[in-house]
């Protein structure tokens, strides 16, 4: 199963990439997905999670075909 993972803003710079495709054997939580993709770094405090363009949380399940994004607090406006 393939899913797309994206990183934005300061988190993109810390992780060192803006996106990647990963293959998972079965649905897993966003937290587990982070550990799979970025094992070297604990997610900075206040990191936000979105699944398929909607806010989610670290325990939300990620499934085949999903797009998952990790990003810092928003600072628009």
């Amino acid at each position, binding site marked *: 199963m393939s899913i797309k993972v994206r990183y934005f803003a*300061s988190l993109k710079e810390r992780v060192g990439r803006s996106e990647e495709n990963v293959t998972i054997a079965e649905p897993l939580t966003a937290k587990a997905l982070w550990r799979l993709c970025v094992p070297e770094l604990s997610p900075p405090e206040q990191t936000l999670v*979105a699944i398929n363009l909607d806010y989610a949380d670290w325990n939300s399940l990620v499934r085949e075909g999903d797009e998952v994004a990790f990003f810092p607090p928003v600072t*628009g406006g």
Partner: protein
Amino acid sequence: MRVKVTAEPFDPWFEARAYQDAAGPMAGKFGALSLFVGTMRDFNAGDQVAGMVLEHYPGMTERALENIVQEAAARWPLLDALVVHRVGEIRPGDPIVLAAVWTSHRGDAFDACRQIMEALKSKAPFWKKERLQATDERWVAENTDGYLKSE
């Protein structure tokens, strides 16, 4: 109701006027337009800022703005609303955001416009990276509470 994310500089007064003129059925119906314009400062957190880059999440950002406007429309009797937000390279003095709300009465216009702006500041996926006069750059860590008084 309309939301727009643009990488081009925009004139908020022109945008609001053009949108209102195009919304023919609204003529004679609205008694209030509340309009907020956010503009880039040349200072932040004690430092001189030379410019900034505003990053967003194409797709999610527009969806978040639409949700914010819809939530306001569910809470107040809005006749129409327009939100425009700039992304990309921005210079001090440039408009960053326009929130315009048309209603029958002023209280709803003020309150809904305020709510749209506060929700945008806390929920819409945009990120500012400032370029400082002192040559380095930094990400803005988080937005402040809009209801707190300025120092």
